[in-house]
């Protein structure tokens, strides 16, 4: 399976994402620069990496979300392309309108950087099928703008449609309903603030992220 990682100016988890994808697919992902106008043919899964694209100017993820490659990814995601965004990647996906809601400044105004316990809300999704029902995982978080917000109607819909895949066990940022990760209506675009790509090697303190990649890769 050919995968790709999009690189924006000041992405900093692009390499982590690439290492994770290579480890789980046995094949190096393509690194695609944000100025490209089209994803290379044959790419089945795209990761929007963490980082501080464009220095978080204007709003986190805002400027990156308007880059040429994101327009192509957005169009292809509407036809089923699998996409995951972690941390800044999640911010980019919401700014691009590929996922609902917005990521605001953490409620306590602090940058949080720590291992975070997350509850698996459902295993009935392309991104969580390999996890055990009602289990907990630990992924690192490292963000300043991770406070997930959406209006009541959107939250109700996410809840009703089972589109909240991960919830914080101890909410670090003020996110509505402890939301840590969501999917789009089609179930093919996923975003979360924590970093599963940094939880794939025992030397880094845990491997709970592996099943997320296995889940989505298996569906391709």
């Amino acid at each position, binding site marked *: 399976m050919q995968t790709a990682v999009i690189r924006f100016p000041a992405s900093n988890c692009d390499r982590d994402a690439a290492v994770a994808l290579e480890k789980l697919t046995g094949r190096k992902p393509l690194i695609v620069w944000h100025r490209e106008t089209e994803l290379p043919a044959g790419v089945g899964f795209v990761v929007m990496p963490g980082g501080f694209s464009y220095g978080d100017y*204007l*709003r986190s993820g*805002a*400027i990156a979300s*308007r880059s040429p490659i994101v327009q192509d990814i957005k169009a292809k995601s509407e036809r089923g392309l699998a996409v995951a965004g972690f941390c800044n990647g999640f911010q980019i996906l*919401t*700014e691009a309108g590929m996922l*609902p*809601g*917005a990521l*605001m*400044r*953490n*409620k*306590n*105004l602090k940058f949080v950087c720590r291992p975070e316990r997350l509850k698996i809300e459902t295993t009935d999704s392309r991104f969580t099928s390999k996890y055990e029902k009602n289990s907990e995982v630990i992924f690192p978080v490292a963000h300043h703008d991770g*406070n997930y*917000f*959406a*209006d009541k109607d959107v939250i109700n819909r996410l809840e009703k449609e089972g589109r909240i895949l991960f919830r914080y066990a101890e909410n670090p940022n*003020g996110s509505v309903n402890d939301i840590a990760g969501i999917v789009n209506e089609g179930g093919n675009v996923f975003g979360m603030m924590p970093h599963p790509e940094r939880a794939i090697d025992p030397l880094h303190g845990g491997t709970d992220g592996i099943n997320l990649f296995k889940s989505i890769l298996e569906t391709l």
Partner: protein
Amino acid sequence: MKALVYIGLKPGVLDPQGRTIARSLNDLGFDEVENAFQGKIIELTLSSTDTEAAEARVKAMCEKLLANTVIENYRIEIVTAE
């Protein structure tokens, strides 16, 4: 001409920075401060000559990039040189 774009959070959206500012002002003895909201101003210098057309263009800029209408409101002020 110039366009001033004022961007702020929509009513009902929690503004932790504004809240912290209000609390700090209270701590400094400005007890009359009940609430603070933090927003931003973006000043655009435009080559446009038609005010009305310029405003429509700036509105498009707000919708396309400058504001995130999920959480933010914006207001545009066109300033023409005397």
